[in-house]
């Protein structure tokens, strides 16, 4: 039995495999970051657990399918897909917040939960109605196909691109949250909403903007994920779970936490699949439970 375990872990010796898995883990982590950053901010500011976040991600992916489909393989088509998905989801997010979410901020938790669940059901079926029930694929833009050599190893270029985008978004978010007035309000809101409105800040539009931003990030994540996943109606089901795990571990309301936890989960999953295929999934839930029991505000969240 020891032999088979040793065999299972033989890859550890192989730096190429390790490097590849690390890259895969980090790039997946970046996608996860895009979804969970939004989810975390939405919880931090609006105090709502947005179960519909996975569907928003999926909408981004489907939008990318449609937009790239207009000019497949080209850079222009791809860029327009990224912009279209982000902007489109920002608009959808704003509409949902204004039309529905606003009404239940003061309701007991079970009503908030039901509403976001309802959105999952509704939007999930709307996606089926618009884009059908089959899996779609998105062609990777010419510019980003193939591999790149670095450190004696070949990596898929697209994955490197994902990491670059992830870093860029993380930096941009940090700049917005720490260097703009709006960003400071957002961070203050995650700590004390009541104080903020007492200071005369228009919290209504702040909430709308935060939700729209979260949705836009999810949409961007979906569009970026489109070339490497099967874009079908079942896409959102697993995504939201991963996002929850990340947000809990990282700390609800913390973007830095979302980044740290996404990378952690991404890398653990990447290596977990090699080492103990079935257990990686159980492991992530176990970690989630442990965090909630021991330190519910996560690694970087603010204690209530």
């Amino acid at each position, binding site marked *: 039995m020891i032999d088979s375990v040793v065999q299972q872990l033989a890859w550890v010796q192989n730096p190429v495999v390790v490097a590849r898995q690390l890259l895969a883990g980090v790039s997946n982590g970046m996608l996860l970051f895009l979804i969970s950053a939004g989810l975390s901010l939405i919880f931090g500011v609006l*105090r709502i*657990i947005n179960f519909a976040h996975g569907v928003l991600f999926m909408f981004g992916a489907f939008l990318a399918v449609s937009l790239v489909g207009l000019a497949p393989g080209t850079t222009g088509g791809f860029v327009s897909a990224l912009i279209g998905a982000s902007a489109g989801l920002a608009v959808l997010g704003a509409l949902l917040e204004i039309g*529905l979410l606003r*009404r*239940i901020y003061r*309701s*007991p*938790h*079970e*009503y908030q*939960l*039901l*509403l976001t*669940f*309802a*959105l*999952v*059901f*509704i939007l*999930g*079926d*709307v996606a*089926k*109605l618009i884009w059908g029930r089959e899996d779609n694929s998105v062609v990777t833009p010419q510019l980003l196909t193939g591999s790149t050599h670095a450190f004696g190893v070949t990596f898929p270029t697209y994955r490197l691109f994902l990491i670059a985008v992830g870093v860029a978004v993380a930096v941009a978010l940090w700049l917005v949250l720490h260097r703009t007035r709006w960003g400071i309000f957002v961070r203050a809101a995650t700590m004390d909403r009541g104080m903020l409105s007492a200071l005369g800040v228009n919290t209504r539009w702040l909430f709308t903007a935060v939700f729209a931003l979260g949705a836009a990030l999810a949409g961007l994540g979906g569009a970026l994920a489109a070339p490497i996943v099967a874009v079908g109606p079942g896409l959102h*089901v697993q995504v*939201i*779970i991963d996002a*929850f*795990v990340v947000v*809990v571990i990282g700390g609800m309301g913390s973007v830095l936490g979302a980044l740290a936890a996404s990378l952690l989960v991404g890398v653990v999953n990447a290596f977990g699949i090699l080492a103990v295929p*079935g257990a990686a*999934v*159980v492991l992530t*839930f*176990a970690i*989630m*439970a442990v965090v*909630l*029991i021991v330190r*519910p505000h996560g690694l970087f969240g603010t204690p209530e």
Partner: protein
Amino acid sequence: MIRLAVPALILLGLPFALSEFWTFIAIEVLAFALYAVSFNVLLGYGGMLSFGHAAFFGVGGYAAAILMKKAGLPAGLAFALVPLAALAVSAAVAVLIGFLSVHRSGIYFAMLTFAFQMLLYTVALKATGITGGDDGMTGLKPPGALGRAFYYYYFALALVAPALYVLYRLVSSPFGITLRALRANPRRVQYVGVNVRAHQLATFVISAAFAGLAGALFALSSGNVFPGWLNWTASATPIVMAVLGGVHTFLGPALGAAVYVVLEVLISGRTEYWPLAMGVIIVALVLLMPEGLTGFTRRKDA
């Protein structure tokens, strides 16, 4: 007592009036009514929102299935043990999960129960040897005449009615009134001498046990159980039924369950977009009728 006579007669007479298909639906209603009412003991009376209650419904279903198919017992004996097994296994799992979860309150409690449900879902999905994995377990058939909907209905009624009565006595008892006080003011209730965590744990376990019984009943009636019963999408079901019926009355959730099940049958029969319909109904419920169907008969002290 007289007030119960009419509904009791209706319940007893239903299988004579309904087709076999609709008797199956009636059985489903009974199971889900128990599920919803026991869930509401935790939510409406205890003020504890669990995002992971479907775990217990599923555990009960799997307990029944494993007992019938994997325990190597004669069908009759296995079947006779199912209710007790479902109660016991669900309660045991709930003791573990509850013990770890009730220390937290509000949203963290909800997320914890959710995490544990996902854990159990993964187990159901991966432990292929015991649980049949992705395919679930099928071909569950009650022995003899009970395999027919007509007779199984009475079997289900014979379990659900007393179970509901037990829960009713529970919420009307000192335990129940203390639970309501706990929901109203957890800090204050400590100061009168109540051990809040212990009380919450007990409520959690009882609620889970009866949810498990409901799951077992449904598994044997529908003939199968799947990992999907424990997937996160299923955790909304008891909440929808309870809120739809009204969380402020004891039997409100039972009405919610009946409406929910019947709506599902009618709508799924006509379109594949039942989720869309359900989503719209939920939105309407939350925005327009948050007190649920029995909202007009709110308990005076709710």
